[in-house]
């Protein structure tokens, strides 16, 4: 899992939000309940990282539309993201990273100030026999561009801050306009843990994704585990008409959020034997009338996706393939072939026959063992086939604020309906899950 919890205050339709996430998260709710606003939390964080705060706010429509329209400037806007990647070595291991960001608005106008930019890394320390010898948290904070490092809550046995991280290696200042969210790594030193462990020889268990060791210098670089941010958080919203009309030539290798470069991505996947096998196995599972996929390079160097159905020996070009079929191929690619550790997919069920939905949901569950997935949907069929633990119901209260209820099927009032053989998808379609 990449992100295990999200908290937000005064962000769009949310006055106060706190929700735990799992490997697969199926966000359901009526129109205008706040599904898109929830997705905008990820979009906003991603945009801060890729384009800076000013642009990220502008992309959300400006401060007026970034914060809640009713709460306005009276309260701070804050976002908190809890990452649960475990990384490190036997002696010191980071098991949770929390990033918090808050801005305060001026009473009038569109002015604002960043009042909190803080990264907290919770760690545990262990001895030679892997017994826990201490725990605590290191807090990096950015105050007006200056980085401060402090040891937060910690057990008595935890070693001092100087033994874990050297201020020598942490830059004093952030570049102008930068935030801790943008920082890729802070170096941790290991000498004190070694000293603390007596004369034994430590056994290192480096996690190659995050750690680079230069033994015997006993210095390693531990990256802040925001790799879900580093690779971007794709927010897919496939537009089959764009896929049909696009003539991809020079395009990026990763799938575009609207699927426009699908032909090129499929071509790249099918260049390897394993990739071809996997893609065809998955696509033909979802679309049992499909026999083969092909990508043809045309005279003008563009690529054309083609598909063969079991009813004919001939391949159909992309513009003759149904919208739902294109969307399902794009969904397969997004679920299984992207490098990112978190993917958000908006309404993947659009244009799909209900009979295929159970397979699509099964594929989402299957893919979520390797990648965290957030899906938004209106479809009762998705609700019907989903594992009830994966459902997140979003709704508006009488004041218009959005809230998220995880596992709505566990609500006592809903349970009674379910016990009386009324399906959860029917309750959802009748807007009765909110009661």
């Amino acid at each position, binding site marked *: 899992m990449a992100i295990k919890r999200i908290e937000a205050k005064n962000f769009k339709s949310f006055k106060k939000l706190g929700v735990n996430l799992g490997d697969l998260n199926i966000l359901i709710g009526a129109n205008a309940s706040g599904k898109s606003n929830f997705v905008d939390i990820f979009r906003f964080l991603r945009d801060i990282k890729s384009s800076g705060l000013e642009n990220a706010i502008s992309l959300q429509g400006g401060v007026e539309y970034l914060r809640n329209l009713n709460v306005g400037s009276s309260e701070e806007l804050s976002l908190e993201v809890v990452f649960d990647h475990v990384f490190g070595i036997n002696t010191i291991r980071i098991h949770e990273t929390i990033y918090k960001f808050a801005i305060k608005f001026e009473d009038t106008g569109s002015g604002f100030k960043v009042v909190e930019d803080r990264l907290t890394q919770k760690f545990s320390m262990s001895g030679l026999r892997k017994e826990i010898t201490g725990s605590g948290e290191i807090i990096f904070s950015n105050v007006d561009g200056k980085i401060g490092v402090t040891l937060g809550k910690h057990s008595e046995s935890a070693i001092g801050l100087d033994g874990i991280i050297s201020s020598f290696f942490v830059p004093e200042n952030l570049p102008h306009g930068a935030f801790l969210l943008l920082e890729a790594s802070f170096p941790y030193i290991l000498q004190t843990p070694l000293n603390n462990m007596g004369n034994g020889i430590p056994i290192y268990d480096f996690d190659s994704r995050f750690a680079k060791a230069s033994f015997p210098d006993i210095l390693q670089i531990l990256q802040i585990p925001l790799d879900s941010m580093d690779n971007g958080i794709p927010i897919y919203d496939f537009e089959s008409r764009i896929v049909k009309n696009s003539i991809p030539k020079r395009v990026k290798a990763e799938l575009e959020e609207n699927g426009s470069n699908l032909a090129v991505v499929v071509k790249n996947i099918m260049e390897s034997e394993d990739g071809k096998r996997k893609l065809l196995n*998955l696509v033909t*599972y979802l679309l049992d009338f499909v026999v083969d996929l092909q990508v043809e390079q045309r005279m003008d160097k563009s690529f054309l996706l083609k598909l063969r159905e079991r009813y004919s020996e001939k391949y159909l070009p992309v513009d003759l393939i149904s919208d739902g079929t294109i969307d399902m191929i794009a969904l397969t690619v997004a679920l299984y072939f992207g490098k990112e550790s978190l993917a958000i997919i908006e309404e993947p069920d659009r244009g799909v026959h209900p009979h295929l939905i159970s*397979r699509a*949901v*099964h*594929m989402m569950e299957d893919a979520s063992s*390797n990648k965290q997935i957030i899906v938004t949907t209106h479809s009762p069929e998705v609700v019907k*086939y989903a594992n009830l633990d994966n459902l997140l119901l979003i709704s508006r209260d009488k004041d218009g604020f959005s809230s998220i209820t995880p596992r709505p099927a566990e609500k006592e009032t809903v349970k009674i309906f379910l016990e009386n*053989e009324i399906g959860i998808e029917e309750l959802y379609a009748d807007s009765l899950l909110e009661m």
Partner: protein
Amino acid sequence: MRMYSRLFIFVEGSTDREFFEKIVVPMFQERYDYVKVEEWAQERKDKINSYIKTIGSGNRNANYIFVTDMDKPCVSAQKETIKKRYKNVDESKILVVCKEIESWYLALLNDDRCEELGISRLHTTDDVTKERFQELTPKKFGSEVDFMREILRTADIETAKRKNKSFRYFVKEYGL
């Protein structure tokens, strides 16, 4: 003139449906004009009961099989559980897969294929559960769906009859 005949196969979920559509439906195609696989686990009880009632109500040209995993200690207890939930199901139409459909998938792999895929050869798959199947899935697949599809692509039905008792029983019972 032979009348148009239909067979409905009720299965628990999508992995069962995939197995039956790819392996079992072709085996029935000589005998029935229309074979349809339906999932029952996520459907309402009364809907499935009504389907079965309709199929079984004096319609001589329609038949059904109700497939279930072995969640109980024995076949008769499992059939009893199904009958209790779906009162219109005829006990003789219930087919119990031992223990779960994953055991039927693995049974389709002959020794050569096991070697090619890099998984241990199993003499029998009667005790294979979903969890065991996941353990046996070669790392290069990284997806259960991909692995299952790969098994179905080169399925060896004769091997499956040999390796799995409940599959063997099913094939014999229906004269396939």
